[in-house]
């Protein structure tokens, strides 16, 4: 480090002959305290203790920028969109369109025509199940899902299969909570019309090899729906690189408000699919003899949307992108590793979900302590985790447990949060003896 002059913090210089030094950026440390200051709710107390919020798989907290965007819309330019010729309507329409473009960019979808705003992931999956089902599913056809799915990626398919006389096939998972790819491949056959699989399991934290799954399915001419509810806020998602035909995400996990979700759908498929919900805005013309449909994506957006929600979601996506999902992923990976080590070291604790590729989620059971009791006792210490079947009863069944306790990490969590969790779990063991 001979006198080359001042360097920006976080850079190093690689060696080399004098005059040819290169500055290389090292990964800047993640400033979690800076991030936490953006989330006002983190300052509140719970039962007299600081809030240790570890239920991010259920929903995330919201940064001030998102809250400001929502109130900003309602105080500044609230109006219905698309057809108003007055100023407020123009502003609202422009902001709503801008939010759609942010969603497109966030998922790297080719076009905003392929971005449908929904209420949440569940609605997105229902939309595809019913509309694609009407298009392609006939009696004797098959739908393939995995054994680690959330109920929202099981039940819509059950409903549609029952309606169309089709069959639901389930690709099994192993004891680590990983999808058995050979078994999935074996299930894809001449009657398979769609494969629906999660990008990341909410109960186990497992990250699935989507590119490989898509390759298998596409080899058989079968489209793939990917449930990205958990994945979308823990890792960068590129729907083109993944090759997904449909990808669902939900706003309230993306540090945005509840009531808004994103469905990406390949244009060629969305064009062919009949509408899901009918009503205003999804039509071009209406007569009592018949109606014609609007262009994509409006064909799938009936009625007044959650305009404020979409705008706030746009602000959330901007916020996430400003920090960077790669940086967030690294920070969360450190927390998950630290938490896994500390929690697994507690006597009588078994981690449920030990896939080689995981993110954010730590599910566990504790001998002599039912998850429900664990949850109540740690809540008294200000620690928020989730206990129960996590809308994944088949997963609980697979691992032979009635329920698990689940801690899940987001960008604002710290090692201190993990320490608070562990102290609270030690309290559980003291109380229940």
């Amino acid at each position, binding site marked *: 480090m001979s006198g080359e002059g001042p360097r920006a913090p976080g850079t190093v210089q690689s060696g080399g002959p004098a005059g040819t030094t290169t500055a290389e950026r090292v990964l800047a440390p993640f400033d979690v305290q800076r991030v936490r200051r953006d989330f006002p709710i983190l300052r509140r107390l719970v039962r007299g203790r600081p809030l240790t919020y570890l239920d991010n798989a259920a929903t995330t907290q919201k940064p001030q920028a998102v809250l400001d965007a929502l109130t900003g819309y309602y105080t500044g330019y609230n109006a219905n969109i698309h057809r108003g010729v007055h100023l407020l309507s123009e502003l609202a329409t422009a902001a709503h369109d801008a939010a759609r473009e942010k969603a497109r960019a966030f998922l790297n979808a080719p076009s905003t025509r392929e971005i449908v705003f929904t209420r949440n992931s569940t609605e997105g999956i229902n939309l595809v199940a019913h509309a694609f089902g009407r298009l392609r599913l006939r009696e004797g056809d098959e739908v393939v899902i995995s054994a680690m799915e959330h109920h929202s990626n099981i039940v819509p398919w059950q409903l549609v299969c029952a309606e169309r006389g089709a069959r639901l096939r389930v690709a099994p998972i192993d004891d680590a909570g990983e999808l058995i790819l050979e078994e999935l491949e074996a299930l894809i056959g001449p009657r398979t019309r769609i494969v629906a699989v999660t990008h990341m399991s909410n109960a186990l934290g497992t990250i699935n090899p989507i590119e490989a799954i898509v390759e298998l399915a596409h080899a058989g001419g079968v489209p793939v729906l990917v449930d990205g509810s958990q994945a979308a806020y823990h890792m960068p998602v590129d729907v083109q690189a993944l090759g997904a035909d449909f990808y669902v995400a939900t706003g309230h996990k993306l540090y945005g408000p509840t009531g808004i979700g994103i469905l990406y759908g390949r244009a060629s498929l969305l064009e062919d699919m009949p509408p899901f919900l009918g009503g205003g805005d999804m039509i071009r013309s209406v007569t009592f003899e018949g109606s014609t449909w609007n262009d994509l994506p409006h064909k799938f957006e009936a009625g007044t949307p959650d305009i404020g929600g979409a705008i706030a979601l746009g602000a959330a996506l901007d916020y996430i992108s400003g920090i960077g999902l790669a940086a967030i992923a690294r920070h969360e990976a450190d927390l998950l590793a630290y938490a896994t080590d500390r929690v697994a070291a507690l006597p009588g604790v078994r981690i449920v979900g030990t896939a080689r590729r995981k993110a954010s989620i730590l599910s566990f059971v504790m001998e002599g*302590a*039912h*998850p*429900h*009791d664990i949850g*109540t*006792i740690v809540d*008294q210490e200000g620690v928020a985790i989730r*206990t*129960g*079947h996590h809308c994944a009863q088949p997963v*609980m069944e697979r691992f032979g447990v*009635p*329920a698990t306790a689940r801690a899940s990490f987001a960008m604002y969590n710290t090692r201190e949060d993990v320490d608070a969790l562990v102290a609270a779990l030690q309290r559980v063991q003291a*109380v*229940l*003896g």
Partner: protein
Amino acid sequence: MSLNELYQEVILDHNKRPRNFGRIEGATHEAQGYNPLCGDRVAVFLHVDADRIADVAFEGSGCAISKASASLMTDRVKGCTVDEVRDLFTRFQRMVTAPPDEAVEDLGKLSVLAGVREFPVRVKCASLAWHTLKAALDKRPSASTE
């Protein structure tokens, strides 16, 4: 209210060493109970003889509150008449759903569960066994807290 009042000695004891835990072969009444929100399961078996609960037992997997409540229940209802048990069901429900600051009837040992009122999500854990017992008496196969 402190956690100590919910997880009292008596409750912890009944959770660790549940009374009347097991099946009754040749039960005259039985029912399954399930709390879908948290996965608590209980099965209640009765031997009713001339309108009296001659024997009662339960099996199940669930949280400490649900197990302790089932255990305390079986201890209490053994030997009671069916009418007494139905009355006790109503009084127990009233106790666990009363607002936290309201005075409640003293139900003897069952009163240890009065504290559950301050943890609304857990009330269903305490009442599952009783709902299941009632279903058994009514000759219904199953009960749920929903």
